[in-house]
Each structure stands twice: as structure tokens, then as C-alpha cells.
């Protein structure tokens, strides 16, 4: 099927909206749009960051997920207490695959779940004493932790516990950074507000710890990688490229990151933002307070990597500019071989994406490098500025959907018939049962890394083994397939 025209896409949206009651239809219509390159600003065509409609199946998370799961969780040498009932922490434990080095339970704590395990008694009488006891126990059992963050779950805000007071008392007692984060799940419309709250907590409780302390030796080539959560090793694949071109990566935020790195970040010369949505707040703050410029970059697929490396190099002198060219040249044979191998197998395949706040636009370049076409994309929790950036990346007249509902997404896939859907775990089995190849693009479907040149090879292999998997041909029972089916093509 050829690419859809603008009219066809608009008709598709109308058709899908048909089942909703009048009021819901009006609301949802604002969140679905046809991409239009002539628009400069996204707010003319799509509404985002609004409350989800009651009754529809949204795919969003909560503020606690945004703070504990995304921003704070990967900081490996801190202990993050899921303060409240046990479930929030337990069901999100270690699912994100943000890799780190260290000995879990001794000096790193990434995959462990710490919770204050609220019961009825704590809701009635308040949980501050319990929190204080938790911190004492942590200090006894895990003395090598470098700090503690208290990630509030919904009840904390509802019963009005004073976690800030507990933090201050315990901070005096132990002399360690203890950060209260007010990321109760009910705040905001999605995990996006959790990111913002987490960024503000870093700003208020951690970032200024080493102001006025110049003992850290700096170089003119110091950078910080911000918003790379090291999913399946992503940050490592990015870091090697930056180091090869001559930069010194002082801090990783927050995949495989430590609190010491975060405290040192105000000393860097340039902040590199990968996930704009979750960490632009802190970058803006550092620009204002410490005059550190920041730029967005994209390490998915060779085209975008080369673009990004050159853009990063522009902020430095000629040695780094040469370094960038050297890195691009060095990996050229490698990625050309990947494209030569997989492009013939993937050429012309259509992809629909529905992911969080960055990848719906960032991975487009990587798919295009493989000759694939992204025909629909959408964000769970993006804001207007994300859609501003998306319009330019996406093809004209392609489908955009914000906070798509389960029903809409299924209908779109049925009508558009993409060759691959990339979304989260909740969508995975639905689409696989519908017979559509699917990649889980939040944690790379237990694969990765996908960043950098090394990651691109894995990305291409994964897309190929998903789309060209022989199982998709076995979907119909053999006696139901037509007798004169096309002869099986030999695989290249």
C-alpha cells in the first residue's frame, strides 16, 4: 500500500473517532492530527499534555513513575525509598533495564526495591516515624550508600506527611544527601510532571553541593551526558563516541550515574541532552545559573549520529572537530556494512510508533537509514515543544496521535497495516496476537543498546529478526491458507 494522502489520513481519524460519545469525540479529535510540514508550531494542529479522558485506556504512567523510575532510579549509588505502600516500587522494580556497574547490595542499589511498606496504621497515624526508622535501617545494612532519595507515593501527599523535616534531621545525623521528592502519583496528567519534580529536587537538594569548591580539575573539553538512562547499555555506547572524539564525559544523567557525577555537572562546559522531555528543566536551570550552554543530540542511526557529532563539535575547537570527523570515518565501514546487509531486507517497510517522550521522533532517522518509513508516531506524555520538533522529522500527511487510547491505536494499526509496531509492553501482546510484528521500544525488548554506531548494528538486526521472522507466515492454519499461495522466497 502506498503512503496515505492527507485526505485518507483525515478520513481515517474521523472513522476512528466515530464510536465515541459527542463530548469525548470532541476532546479526542484535538489529540489526533495529520502531519503538516507547512506548520511551524504544533499547537496549531495537536493538543498535548492534557488530562486523559476517564473511561478510555490510556497508556500513560504517573508522576512517581517519572521521578523514581526515570530520573532518580538509575542513580546507582543512592538508595531510593519508595515511600508508601509496597506495590508501586515492587511492580516497577528493575523492569527498565538501566544497566550499571557495581556490586548490587553493596555499593550500588539499582535493581533493589526499598520501600517503607505502608499499612493502614501508617495512614492513620502518619508515616514519618517509619520513614526515619527506614533510613536508620538502611544506614545499618547498606553503609556504602552515598545518599538516599525519598520517592513519595500517593498516600504521602494525601495524609500530609512532612518528609522534608525527616530528611533534614537525618541529613544532620548521617551527613549524607537525603532528598525528599514530592512525586506523588496523582500529581499532573502523566509521568511528565514527575520528571519536572525530580529535576527540581535535584536542583534544590543536590546540584549546588559543590558550588565554590574548585578542587575538581576541569578541562576545556568537559561535557555531561544528560537524559541517557543507559537502557541495555545505551549510555555506554554513546559515551565511547564522545570520548573518542576527544571530549571528557564528566557525568552521566542518570543511567549508570552517581551522585558525585551529578554534583560535578555544574563544572562542565556543555550539557548534551538526549532525552529532552525528561531533563530539559535541569539543563535550562544550569544554563541560567552556571552559564552552561546545552544542545540536544540524537544518537539513533548513522545519519543522525554524524549530524549530532558535528553539531556537538561546533561548540569546541578544531581538535574536537577533527575528532568528530575521525570518529565518523572510523565507523563508516562498519555501519555501511550493516546498511548493506539489512537494508535490502527492510526496504520500504512501514513502522508505527507510540512511545514516551523522545523516541517517537528520535528513532525516525534510524529507521530511515534502513530504508523504512515511519507512517505514524505519537507520544504518551509529550508537550507542545516535542511536537514542534516532531513535525519536521515526520513525513508529510503522516499520522500523529497524542496520548492515544488502546482502542484508537488498534484501529489505526488495522487500517494503516504497518509492517512493524514499536510501543510498550502493554501493547506488545495485543499486536502480536493480531499478527503484526512488534518491538517493545521502551526497554528495547530485552535487547540493546540502540544508541551509537554499535547500537545501530543491534537495532538493525533486531528489526530484521522481528519483521522477517518466519512465524508471521504461520499465522493462518495450513488448511485455511489458499492453495495457490506465493512460493516461499529465499532469504538473502
Amino acid at each position: 500500500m502506498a503512503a496515505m494522502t492527507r485526505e485518507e489520513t483525515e478520513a481515517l481519524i474521523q472513522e476512528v473517532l466515530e464510536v465515541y460519545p459527542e463530548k469525548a469525540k470532541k476532546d479526542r479529535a484535538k489529540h489526533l492530527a495529520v502531519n503538516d510540514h507547512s506548520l511551524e508550531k504544533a499547537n496549531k494542529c495537536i493538543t498535548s499534555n492534557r488530562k486523559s479522558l476517564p473511561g478510555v485506556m490510556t497508556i500513560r504512567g504517573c508522576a512517581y513513575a517519572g521521578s523514581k523510575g526515570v530520573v532518580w532510579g538509575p542513580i546507582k549509588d543512592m538508595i531510593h525509598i519508595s515511600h508508601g505502600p509496597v506495590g508501586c516500587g515492587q511492580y516497577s522494580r528493575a523492569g527498565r533495564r538501566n544497566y550499571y556497574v557495581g556490586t548490587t547490595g553493596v555499593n550500588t542499589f539499582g535493581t533493589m526495591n526499598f520501600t517503607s511498606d505502608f499499612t493502614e496504621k501508617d495512614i492513620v497515624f502518619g508515616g514519618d516515624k517509619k520513614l526515619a526508622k527506614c533510613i536508620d535501617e538502611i544506614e545499618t545494612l547498606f553503609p556504602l550508600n552515598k545518599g538516599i532519595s525519598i520517592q513519595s507515593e500517593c498516600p504521602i501527599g494525601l495524609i500530609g506527611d512532612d518528609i522534608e523535616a525527616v530528611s533534614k534531621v537525618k541529613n544532620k545525623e548521617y551527613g549524607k544527601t537525603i532528598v525528599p521528592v514530592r512525586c506523588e502519583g496523582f500529581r499532573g496528567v502523566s509521568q511528565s510532571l514527575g520528571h519536572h519534580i525530580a529535576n527540581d529536587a535535584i536542583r534544590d537538594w543536590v546540584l549546588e553541593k559543590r558550588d565554590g569548591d574548585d578542587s575538581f580539575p576541569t578541562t576545556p573539553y568537559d561535557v555531561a551526558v544528560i537524559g541517557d538512562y543507559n537502557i541495555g547499555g545505551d549510555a555506554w555506547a554513546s559515551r565511547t563516541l564522545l570520548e573518542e572524539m576527544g571530549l571528557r564525559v564528566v557525568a552521566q544523567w542518570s543511567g549508570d550515574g552517581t551522585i558525585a557525577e551529578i554534583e560535578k555537572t555544574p563544572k562542565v562546559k556543555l550539557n548534551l541532552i538526549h532525552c529532552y522531555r525528561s531533563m530539559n528543566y535541569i539543563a535550562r536551570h544550569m544554563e541560567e545559573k552556571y552559564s552552561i550552554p546545552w544542545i540536544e543530540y540524537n544518537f539513533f542511526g548513522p545519519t543522525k549520529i554524524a549530524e549530532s557529532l558535528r553539531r556537538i563539535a561546533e561548540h569546541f575547537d578544531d581538535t574536537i572537530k577533527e575528532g568528530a570527523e575521525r570518529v565518523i570515518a572510523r565507523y563508516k565501514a562498519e555501519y555501511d556494512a550493516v546498511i548493506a546487509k539489512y537494508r535490502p531486507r527492510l526496504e520500504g517497510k512501514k513502522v508505527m510508533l507510540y512511545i514516551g517522550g523522545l523516541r517517537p521522533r528520535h528513532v525516525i532517522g534510524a529507521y530511515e537509514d534502513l530504508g523504512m518509513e515511519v507512517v505514524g508516531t505519537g507520544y504518551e506524555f509529550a508537550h507542545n515543544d516535542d511536537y514542534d520538533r516532531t513535525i519536521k522529522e515526520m513525513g508529510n500527511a503522516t499520522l500523529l496521535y497524542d496520548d492515544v487510547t488502546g482502542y484508537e491505536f488498534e484501529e489505526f494499526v488495522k487500517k494503516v497495516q504497518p509492517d512493524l509496531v514499536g510501543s510498550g509492553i502493554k501493547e506488545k501482546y495485543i499486536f502480536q496476537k493480531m499478527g503484526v510484528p512488534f518491538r517493545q521500544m521502551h526497554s528495547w525488548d530485552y535487547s540493546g543498546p540502540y544508541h551509537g554506531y554499535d547500537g545501530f548494528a543491534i537495532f538493525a538486526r533486531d528489526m530484521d529478526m522481528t519483521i522477517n521472522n518466519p512465524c508471521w507466515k504461520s499465522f493462518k492454519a495450513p488448511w485455511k491458507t489458499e492453495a495457490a499461495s506465493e512460493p516461499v522466497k529465499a532469504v538473502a
Partner: protein
Amino acid sequence: MPSVMLRKREDGKLLFYVAKKDLEETIESLEFDSPEKWGGEVVLGDGSKYYFEPMEPAPKIPTTLQAKRLSEE
């Protein structure tokens, strides 16, 4: 009175960013824009108008300032 973060874009244009409103727009015109006096009425890329208390001397950008929203006549 939204608090506005101002920063320079790579091409030299001023960006006007209000986190709470997801508003990121370029500043198209500024009433007073000299090193001595800065502020006054601003017009954004989308046509909306805001007002900064004029300041002497001009603030160092990037910075966060309070702006008043002007109703459009």
C-alpha cells in the same frame, strides 16, 4: 504573572519559555533593547503580547523574569 525563562537560540533570537504553559516562542520585537534599557512590551512569534518591567541596565541572558500578559485589543 508567569515566570519566563529567556535564552538565546543558536541563531541569536531570544526564546521566551514558560514551563508551566509549555510555551516556547521566539521574541519578535522588544520595546527597549539596548544595553542601557531593556524590557517593555514584547511580541512573540505567535502574536501574543507580554510586558517586562523595563530594566536598567539590561539583564544577563539566560535569566528568569516575571512577565505580565497583555490582553490583545
